[in-house]
């Protein structure tokens, strides 16, 4: 698959990652274009989370290069900051700050890392709270919200940094079933607004609706990269066929 290099926003080249002697990523290559929505799936332990966590260096890779918007991770604080400013992340466990109100959760980054004034940051925060449809919860604390609401706050917190890319690390896996859709709806809306997204998820309905590109990983390798029409109908690899059969049969 070739892509126009001018449009490439994230380039992962020959990346390997070890946890002790266990190799979590084995020479992984992936290009993501501006505005592209990539859904990564695969069995647990296949390295999907590790892969996206390497993009903003929550995990450091040992080999290969990761370039985001023409900045390559070179181990310096400068490249790290430059890339983290461009990349937002949403976690499985939300990771909201429990001692801060919803509004303070959202304004902390804009005020401290982007140097915004408090009133401006609060205006921005309310704007994104409306976008995730919970402006009325701004004064509450995270623990007073449902899981689905907490995850939407977490999405808004990331968006307040106005990133070019959003990473989602199994954003609905810790949620009760009835709350999954409210989060997926927000993500779908975000996708339709043109945001570049990489989503690790098992929600295949969402993947079919939203993804431009499906990526299947197994044992630290990218086994299959295909558009969803092809990916779900006739994947090339046997491993991918097996996996899809298991998760789509019910």
């Amino acid at each position, binding site marked *: 698959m070739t892509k126009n290099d001018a449009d490439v926003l994230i380039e992962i080249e020959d990346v390997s990652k070890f946890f002790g002697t266990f190799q979590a990523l084995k020479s992984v290559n992936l290009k993501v274009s501006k505005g592209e929505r990539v859904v990564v799936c695969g069995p647990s332990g296949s390295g999907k989370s590790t892969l996206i966590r390497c993009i903003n260096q929550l995990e450091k890779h040992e080999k290969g290069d990761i370039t985001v918007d023409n900045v390559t991770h070179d181990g310096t604080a400068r490249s790290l900051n430059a890339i983290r400013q461009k990349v937002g992340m949403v976690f499985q466990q939300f990771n909201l700050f*429990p001692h801060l109100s919803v509004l303070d959760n959202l304004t902390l980054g804009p005020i401290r890392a982007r140097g915004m004034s408090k009133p401006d940051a609060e205006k921005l925060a309310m704007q994104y709270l409306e976008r995730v449809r919970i402006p009325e919860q701004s004064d509450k604390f995270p623990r007073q919200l449902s899981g689905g609401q907490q995850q939407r706050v977490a999405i808004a917190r990331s968006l307040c940094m106005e990133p070019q890319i959003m990473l989602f690390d199994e954003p609905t896996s810790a949620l009760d079933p009835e709350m999954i859709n409210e989060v997926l709806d927000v993500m779908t809306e975000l996708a339709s607004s043109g945001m570049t997204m990489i989503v690790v998820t098992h929600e295949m309905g969402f993947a079919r609706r939203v993804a431009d590109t499906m990526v299947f990983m197994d044992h630290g390798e990218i086994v299959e990269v295909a558009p969803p029409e092809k990916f779900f109908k006739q994947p090339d690899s046997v491993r991918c066929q097996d996996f899809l059969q298991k998760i789509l049969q019910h």
Partner: protein
Amino acid sequence: MLKKLSPLLLLLPLSGCASNWGWYVVDPTTNSGYNNVWFLLTGLYYTVLLSVTAIVISVVIGLLVALPGLSANKYLRGFNRVYVEFVRAVPILVLILWVYYGLPQLAGIAIGVFWAGVIALALSDSAFEAEIFRAGIQSIDKGQYEASHSISLNYADTMRFVILPQAIRRILPALGNQLVYMLKMSSLVSVIGMQELTRKANELVVTEYRPLEIYTVLVLEYLVLILIVSAGVRWLERRMQTDERN
């Protein structure tokens, strides 16, 4: 508060059945007794001032020693280990004597009794504070750091706005303990002539020859002081908890 002090009433009959008690030395209805009680109470000023100054300094040093202990750099961790093990191994009384009599010679400076006491108590306590902070910070979920990184907070902001506010809530009971401990250990500074509660009592014993009564009053002074501090810490704990819940 009154309810908590009521067990003290049990001590009263003791004075009745023992013929060798001479409460007159601290009987506030007589002139000399009143002066003696006042003399003993004036020690409160330096006990409280010394303890509070020392605890503030030890908390600051403790935090500054704890942070390198959490670093990925092994030399920074080594510094933390050496500091904690070394300072923890010196008895407080020995440290007081060393700072008061030894340090002026070594550094070529004059140190007053008060600051010698503050330095010795603060240093000694800082090793324990460092361990408390380290434990508190380590108890915070890794996800809090990851979320902070993902919104581009630097190390100082992550600590200041995310990690420490949560850690301090968790270690508040332990910090309260240290304050109580500090109030008690401040009595040791009496050996270098600090005019705090214990020194005052010692001096009065020398002139009045009634150690039993005077030291009993001293016990009660510490008891009341520490009960008040404990109640204060508990109030603060409750307040911070409701902060987080409401």
